[in-house]
């Protein structure tokens, strides 16, 4: 992912344009990709993003922060073998992007120049949209939401001694152009309101958290009112005040909806992402016991309105009927159709 710097956009660049593609034309993107492949390599990619965001943070009954920000920048990477050359810039002008491409290509010595296929737009499997654009909502309303959350949490009982509530929205415009011809232009609206409540009684202190989020507009707040979100968090904290210490030992555990996904994400999937590559890891292939009924899916797409669903990627099955059916893929010289990064991949990074 590009490390975009917080910056003032260059003169003439439309901030908040309907599409980041309005800021960067295809001819320039193709030139950048050609420069990135000047020393060879299996492929090159250009990632451009602009992200406008607002956040409101309330702590202990006071609005501590109201921030707005604009992140804008681009990253260029060149893949060769299992390594990447990577460089980024927070300027989107021609000189800066070509400089980034040259820096990304500097560590590559893989023969002559590589080809760049004509860039063409991909049809998205899913399009995220905001029914109510968060930027159309006055900041005063967003402040009112976190205040409402604070009041609702405290109203649940005198045990609630501290509440923090955070509202955030953003619109991220992303463009990915790749040497294989992919041109993906995506808009990602995001909204989240989260509440953390602290309950105390007789020296016993417990916390509760709840924070619905989605790729959506403020209709997400309509569906998950601040008071309701706060009550879930506060009730969780108060409930835990009456909890007994958990018994230790081996036992059966039932995970509520969503929780198994967290466990899968953090444990096997992260393990697979950290080690899966052209050589399949022993630990991952060992997950073939017929006892498991798990069907795991790594999905960058296909779930409208849900987090991290992205237009440019696809859904990958990893496990079915207790057997491994796929691997967390990444793009390497030997897997041109795959995407995403890998923690074992060596990356040479520089800033243009």
């Amino acid at each position, binding site marked *: 992912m590009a490390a975009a710097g917080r910056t003032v956009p260059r003169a003439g660049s439309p901030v908040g344009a309907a599409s980041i593609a309005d800021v960067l034309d295809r001819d320039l993107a193709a030139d950048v990709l050609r420069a990135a492949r000047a020393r060879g390599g299996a492929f090159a990619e250009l990632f451009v993003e602009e992200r406008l965001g607002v956040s409101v943070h309330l702590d202990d009954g006071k609005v501590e922060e109201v921030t707005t920000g604009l992140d804008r920048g681009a990253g260029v990477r060149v893949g060769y073998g299992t390594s990447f050359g990577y460089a980024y810039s927070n300027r989107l002008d021609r000189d800066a992007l070509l400089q980034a491409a040259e820096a990304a290509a500097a560590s590559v010595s893989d023969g002559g120049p590589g080809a760049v296929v004509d860039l063409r737009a991909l049809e998205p499997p899913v399009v995220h949209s905001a029914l109510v654009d968060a930027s159309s909502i006055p900041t005063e309303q967003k402040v009112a939401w976190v205040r409402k959350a604070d009041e609702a949490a405290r109203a649940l009982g005198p045990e609630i001694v501290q509440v923090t509530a955070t509202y955030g929205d953003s619109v991220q415009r992303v463009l990915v152009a790749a040497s294989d011809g992919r041109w993906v232009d995506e808009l990602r609206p995001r909204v*989240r309101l989260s509440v953390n409540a602290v309950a105390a009684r007789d020296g016993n202190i*417990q*916390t509760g*958290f709840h*924070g619905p989020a*989605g790729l959506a507009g403020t209709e997400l707040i309509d569906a998950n009112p601040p008071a309701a979100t706060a009550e879930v968090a506060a009730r*969780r904290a108060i*409930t*835990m005040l*009456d909890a*007994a*210490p*958990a*018994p*230790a*030992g*081996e*036992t*059966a*555990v*039932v*995970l*509520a*909806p*969503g*929780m*198994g*996904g*967290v*466990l*899968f*994400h*953090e*444990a*096997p999937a992260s*393990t697979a992402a*950290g*080690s899966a590559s052209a050589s399949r890891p022993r*630990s991952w292939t*060992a*997950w073939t*016991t017929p006892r*498991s*009924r*798990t*069907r*795991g*899916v*790594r*999905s*960058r797409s296909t*779930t409208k309105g*849900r*987090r*991290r669903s*992205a237009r440019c*990627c696809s859904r990958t099955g990893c*496990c079915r009927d207790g057997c491994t059916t796929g691997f*967390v893929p990444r793009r390497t010289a030997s897997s041109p159709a795959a995407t995403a990064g890998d*923690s074992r991949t060596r990356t040479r990074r520089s800033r243009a």
Partner: protein
Amino acid sequence: MTNTYILNGSATPEQIVADTERGVFVTALAGGQTNPATGDFVFGCAEAYVIDKGEVTKPVRGANLIGRAIEVMSSVDAIAADFDIWPGICGKDGQGVPVGSGSPTLRIARITVGGTGA
């Protein structure tokens, strides 16, 4: 790491709990740590209850789920059809992306629960 989902099975949440003689019902996980090289993990439970004779009973605090990823996922022996997604942030090297982790209600037949109670 991007979105990861465990897809629906065919059981109902009520069936899964009723078929559990004794165990822990976790309704919210807190933070955790994973060693990506070995798959060893520890997760705290933000909200959890004892299951006794097929019924959800009293709340418990301080519960941690401890295990090795592959072994634990291989121990899943019941999956319901009530898929939902939990929003979060996943990051490395100081960068984070919003992600969704999804699954239906499911049961791990045996896992180590760390706690201070008897």
